[in-house]
């Protein structure tokens, strides 16, 4: 890591930080009377970028929309996004750049469990708000004394797995259920959730793990063969979308046709799934057909639900303000808009006297009131920094749109511990006519 000397001199000149004194309670960086500077890290390029590389442009589009309406208490929001290529070493160096050169006030919407693991401790040590992280790793959020400034942008993998697990048990009571999981925090969270829901897996038989990151290079043939040999009829995939794509191709090669694929939401993102398969010369219509019938879950409406008021409002803003290279409306864009919306809501709620400490305090005390397109409430409090505590279950149709299973959509809710899975009674507040959140 290295930084341009003039930047540091500039830092020193304004007295925000000091080499020769214990850091004092100086004004937080990244906030002026006219501007709030936010940072985020994501894979904008590289193998892990498809789909995720649209989130920052969507967030910026919403912020630009807010700026066009006067900003937050007169402050325009600037988002500085850095490409870490999903390489943890670059996540560290880009975080330093955001902190020391861009002087960000807070981080928002950063993408990735493994990459964020490389910086989460340092961000928290520095007291930098680390909002709406795009990772479902429960370890980031369920112990706020460890990571007091980090708040989720997704429901945890545990919550999602518990809800999907209950559905699987109820829907396929006589089927043999197995799991293909990446052997890391994601997989660990998933297995915790599914087993809490009552599913039982046998290592070497119905539970097939692989090292995250090797699915492309080493493949997952032996794992799927293991599940096939074990007679698994319902295959759960607890991994990223590249695994789902490879699994689909590998199963075909093995002539393995389980009765049902159940894929956790991160692994079933249609854009990512189809983009990856497109690189393997599989056309969108064909990949959509491969996705069709897969069961998954979501905390938000499907981007294809054009009549949903949030979807409609965000889509309109995306059309007008998104200047990214690919602003095609999809789940990633919706998630980006949603995070930006919540960010603005939190900044407004914190008030005119914006400080990092005040923002964290607001998130701990009022964060549970945050609204968004999500159909489940957020769980933010001083005891947990989990976001969405609920998911609805759907099945992909032939056009790669997730549609609710059953006659109507049912949102289930639970926690990341041993709490029961119940039907949510949450009523999503309506979006305002100007699509701007109102201060709580």
């Amino acid at each position, binding site marked *: *890591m*290295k*930084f341009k*000397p*003039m*930047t*540091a*001199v500039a*830092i*020193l*000149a304004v007295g925000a*930080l*000091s*080499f*020769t*004194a*214990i*850091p004092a309670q100086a004004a937080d960086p990244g906030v002026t009377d006219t501007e709030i500077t936010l940072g985020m890290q994501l894979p904008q390029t590289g193998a892990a970028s498809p789909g995720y590389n649209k989130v920052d442009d969507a967030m910026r589009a919403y912020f630009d929309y807010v700026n066009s309406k006067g900003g937050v208490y007169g402050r325009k929001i600037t988002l500085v996004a850095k490409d870490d290529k999903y*390489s*943890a*070493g*670059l996540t560290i*160096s880009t975080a*330093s750049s955001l*902190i*020391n050169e861009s002087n960000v006030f807070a981080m928002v919407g950063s993408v990735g*469990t*493994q*990459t964020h*693991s*490389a910086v*989460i*401790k*340092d961000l928290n*040590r*520095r007291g930098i708000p680390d909002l709406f992280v795009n990772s479902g*790793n429960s*370890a980031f959020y369920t112990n706020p004394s460890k990571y007091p400034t980090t708040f989720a942008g997704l429901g945890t993998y545990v919550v999602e797995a518990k809800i999907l697990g209950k559905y699987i048990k109820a829907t396929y009571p006589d089927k043999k259920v197995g799991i293909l999981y*990446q*052997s*890391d*925090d994601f*997989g*660990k969270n998933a297995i915790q959730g599914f087993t809490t829901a009552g599913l039982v897996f046998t290592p070497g038989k119905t539970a097939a*793990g*692989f*090292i*995250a*990151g*090797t699915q492309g*290079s080493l493949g997952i043939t032996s794992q799927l063969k293991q599940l096939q040999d074990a007679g698994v009829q319902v295959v759960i995939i607890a991994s990223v979308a590249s695994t789902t794509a490879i699994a689909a191709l590998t199963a075909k090669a093995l002539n393995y046709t389980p009765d049902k694929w159940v894929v956790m939401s991160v692994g079933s993102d249609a854009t990512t799934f189809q983009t990856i398969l497109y690189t393997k010369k599989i056309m969108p219509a064909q990949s959509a057909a491969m996705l069709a019938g897969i069961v998954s879950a979501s905390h938000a409406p499907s981007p294809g639900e054009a009549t949903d008021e949030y979807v409609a409002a965000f889509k309109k803003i995306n059309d007008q303000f998104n200047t990214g290279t690919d602003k095609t409306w999809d789940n990633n864009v919706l998630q980006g808009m949603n995070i930006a919306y919540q960010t603005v809501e939190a900044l407004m709620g914190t008030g005119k006297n914006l400080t990092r400490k005040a923002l964290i305090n607001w998130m701990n005390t009022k964060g549970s009131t945050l609204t968004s397109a999500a159909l489940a409430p957020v769980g933010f409090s001083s005891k947990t920094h989990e976001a969405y505590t609920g998911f609805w279950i759907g099945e992909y149709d032939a056009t790669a749109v997730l549609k609710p299973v059953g006659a109507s959509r049912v949102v289930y809710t639970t926690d990341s511990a041993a709490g029961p899975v119940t039907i949510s009674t949450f009523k999503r507040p309506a979006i305002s006519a100007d699509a701007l959140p109102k201060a709580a």
Partner: protein
Amino acid sequence: MKRMNMRKLVATFGASALIVTGFVAVTPSAHAADPVCATSAKTGVETCAGKLSNGASYVMMVPSTFNGTFFYWNHGFRASYPYPGYSVPTGVQEVTPYNPSTGKDVTQQMLYAGYGLASYDRSSTGLHGWNSADSVEMLKNLIDIAKAKYPTIKKNIIYGSSAAGAILTPFVEKYPNYADAVGIMAGLTPPAANEIKSLCDAFYIMSVFFDPTIKGCAAMGAKGVAGHMAALGELGKVVALLKGWSADYGAKPLAYPAAITPYGIPQRSALLLSGLMIGLPTKSSHMDGISTSTLVPEQSINATIAILENYGEAIATGALAGQAISEITGPGFYDNTKTDWASLLSDEDAARYNLGLSGDDAISAMVGVLSMAPRVKGDPAAMAKLAALDHVDFSSTKPTVLLSNEADRLVFAGNTSYYVDKAQAVYDQRLADYQSGKSKVKPVWNTLAMYAMTPVTYTKFLASGAPDLSAKTAAVSGVGHQNFTVDQMMAWVRILAQSAKYGHLPTDNYVAANLKRDPNFNLDPMYRPNDLKYTA
């Protein structure tokens, strides 16, 4: 006469059988003598040489433009007995801060700046080893001699590198009026037990996964040549493993113990686990932890090779310094009966290096094996002596400036942040006392940590895709022990001089102006390197 060079030691183990000769320690005559001085007609520098009261050699150099500020250099650890590539020093080797990688020091630059220089051979009774307590008195002796010889001295700055950290802090606490500023370069922060325990852990982990004949620190404690040879023997076993992995990057599956063989975990994953558990840097001279090639397709493999590149010198430090310390404590200073191995791998590292560690299932298996392996039980008396070694309370009020590399594989950079933490705790208490009226003295924050960083990326690959581990592509900054550029060392020297001049750290502007002279200096006041795994 050669300075200690761990890289050469490790290379020697790999290249040839161990040949140790010349074990005769020379006991110098124990009396001080007036220095013998000569002035260079060409440079005007007066050079004086003499003996301290215990017979150890010293050197002083004073330019004709002497400005009244005198620097007293304290070199790092030296073994008492030779090994291939190293002969025991019998005189002053270093006069000023020295980079063993480049062979450059800053003697000329410091003399040109008008500073007086002094240095001494830290030998007591003809031996070196862990003689920090003796060195404290030798340093006092040296300063007394210099002040007597040069009455125009106005400011005294004590500074040193590596193990000298265990001299400088005890010294300034014992003799606060002898120093106006303290400089600690790549320095160990007492107690040495913190880092030594990690290095002993390294031996232990190697014994569990790869070679049950490795005893590591449990084999240390015999005095003299026998102990030295025993420690080198332990080192040789680990170096043999490292040599094997250099050829195949540890691709073979773990074959020992039997409980772990069904997992098919590559040996490199256990190597990486070991490095992470002891806090070894995941950047090395040639591996930046980021860059990839077709052969090294993901960053965690890059970090694994960095661990491999760093391991030899770290374990050599453990062998030589551990043995030297064991001569003071006696055998049994290492104990891991209460070690929680799982806690030594942070959640963050487990996630970040998950691929290199072969995933959570492999991590669980490896940690499980470690947890079930027979432990090393130490001797309570020896452990107590180690804990008390070089005791300090961080109470000095003198300006103290630390300089550390981000990725120092011998004395981990966490020593520097640990020093700052301890100094801050003392400062906070003093401030509370002042604010509550218990003290009338308002404390002054007088500790500054400077870090040299690596470039973001610097790994080069050969056409085959293998990392190029040749010296030509080495990182220009931030890695290695005492591997600082002349500009970096002189920036540190200037800040020390300014601190001594005013009795407190210089202004932020002055510090920043010096830091910006080198593009790889850390400019983030809140930067923190990886913490030590153990902090007493």
